């Protein structure tokens, strides 16, 4: 039996450099980098993608003080995606609404903050905040959104490293198709720039970009790339079964026609192109599409020296003989938004169904020969006659792979 198609009817996002789908799309088409620099604990200056949205647009100051940056990002994106879908909280059935948010990690920020806090008091734990547990439980960002909106359906996060944004979407598709919920708010969230540990660990691994010019720092596929620019961000979609969306006359941004998740089972960090290619093929099979039916492939392309090479091997294996496929990457413009990356980067390509343009890659001046692949849109934007299918890769540590395919409604 063919599963019920799932429609995207709303998008809410905040990215380094823009808020909202329209502004984000324009940022990518203009080729503007949203990366800047911040001071981080113990490390000083680092390049980072910082979001600039109004935390108090949908949240009271007390709730913001009590909660987390991740929760605040989720609340902003959640309201924005519902608004974009033409829905309001009073008219939706909140018991039949699910919240599924991908996260790379959660709790590092809050734990580091408390360790720094009690260090001022001779490490006396009586100064450790009672807010620590509700802030650090893994469901925190989804839970804060549930509390804020009064949504009484299921809420949880999905820990899937940097494959998490797509994983949130996939979970929502499955729950809608199972009939467990009638509406889903799903995507990915990251507050990771607030934790020095993630920067320090990437640095120790030799995978942190330290370019003195933040605008040039994130350079996926470029010969001179030197690592990741850590970013925060969020992207939440309103998802509905296609029949429900049509019945209420909703604008349909696109359909989730295929998806897959699998595991490398080979290494903690180094990606496995064989399993990545397998994941892409599984998603194509689920969508009942051939490789050459895909019009845009949005690569994960983190700008680590090895990660990009491994992914290009996977893409060559699936798309190497295709003459229709255009390949781009997003992290040159916004850095690596970690748990939000997959959902955000998919959103950045979503308007291509309407404007017929493939955005290019940021900071790709000198292509690494090991990253050469037919169809790569290295610079500028590529107008395309017909864009019907978009495929998004999102991969993460411990060998977790996720692929989502969108089809024009």
């Amino acid at each position, binding site marked *: 039996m063919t599963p019920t198609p799932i429609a995207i009817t709303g998008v809410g996002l905040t990215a380094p450099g823009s808020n909202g789908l329209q502004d984000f799309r324009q940022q990518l088409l203009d080729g503007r980098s949203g990366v800047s620099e911040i001071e981080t604990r113990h490390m000083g200056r680092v390049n980072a993608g910082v979001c600039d949205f109004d935390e108090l647009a949908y949240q*009271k*100051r*007390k709730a913001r*003080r*009590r909660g987390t940056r991740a929760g605040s990002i989720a609340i902003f994106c959640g309201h924005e995606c519902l608004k974009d879908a033409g829905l309001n909280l009073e008219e939706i059935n909140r018991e039949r609404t699910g919240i599924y948010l991908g996260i790379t990690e959660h709790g590092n920020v809050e734990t580091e903050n408390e360790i720094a806090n009690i260090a001022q*008091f001779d490490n006396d734990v*009586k*100064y450790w*905040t*009672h*807010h620590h547990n509700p802030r650090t439980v893994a469901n925190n960002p989804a839970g804060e959104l549930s509390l804020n909106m009064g949504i009484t359906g299921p809420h949880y996060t999905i820990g899937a490293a940097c494959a998490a944004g797509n994983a949130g979407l996939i979970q929502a598709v499955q729950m809608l198709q199972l009939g467990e919920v009638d509406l889903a708010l799903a995507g990915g969230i990251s507050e990771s720039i607030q934790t020095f540990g993630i920067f320090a660990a990437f640095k120790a691994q030799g995978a942190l970009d330290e370019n003195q010019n933040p605008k040039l720092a994130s350079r996926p596929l470029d010969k001179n790339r030197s690592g990741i620019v850590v970013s925060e961000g969020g992207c939440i979609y309103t998802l509905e079964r296609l029949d429900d969306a049509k019945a209420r006359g909703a604008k349909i941004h696109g359909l989730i026609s295929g998806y897959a998740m699998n595991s490398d089972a080979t290494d903690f960090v180094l990606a496995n192109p064989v399993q990545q290619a397998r994941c892409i093929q599984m998603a194509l099979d689920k969508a009942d599409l051939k490789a050459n039916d895909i019009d845009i492939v949005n690569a994960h392309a983190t700008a680590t020296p090895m990660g990009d090479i491994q992914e290009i091997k996977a893409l060559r294996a699936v798309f190497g003989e295709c003459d229709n496929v255009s390949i781009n990457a997003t992290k040159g413009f916004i850095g690596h938004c970690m748990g939000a990356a997959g959902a955000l980067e998919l959103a950045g390509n979503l308007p291509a169904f309407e404007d017929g343009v493939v955005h290019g890659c940021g900071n790709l001046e000198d292509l690494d020969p090991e990253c050469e692949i037919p169809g790569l849109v290295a610079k500028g934007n590529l107008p395309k006659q017909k864009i019907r299918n978009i495929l998004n890769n999102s991969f993460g540590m411990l060998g977790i792979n996720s692929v989502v395919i969108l089809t024009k409604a």
Partner: protein
Amino acid sequence: MTAEETRQAVIDIITDIAPDEDLASLSDDKPLRDQIDLDSMDFLDIVMELRKRHSIEVPEADYPELNTMAGCVKYLQPKMT
């Protein structure tokens, strides 16, 4: 610390913990929770801030002493340095 200074110290703490509230017309004799949105987690924040800012320990048995602003001043003023 005078009674007025003690009151202001409590107001400063509540301002940070409940930043959406208007504290200008707070009655000293009515329970704080009847006048502003303060739940048990907020109350624990007040206790924590008294510890951090003024090195005052409020044992759980004494929490009722802090129900009103007048109670706060009466209880805390002798402990303020």
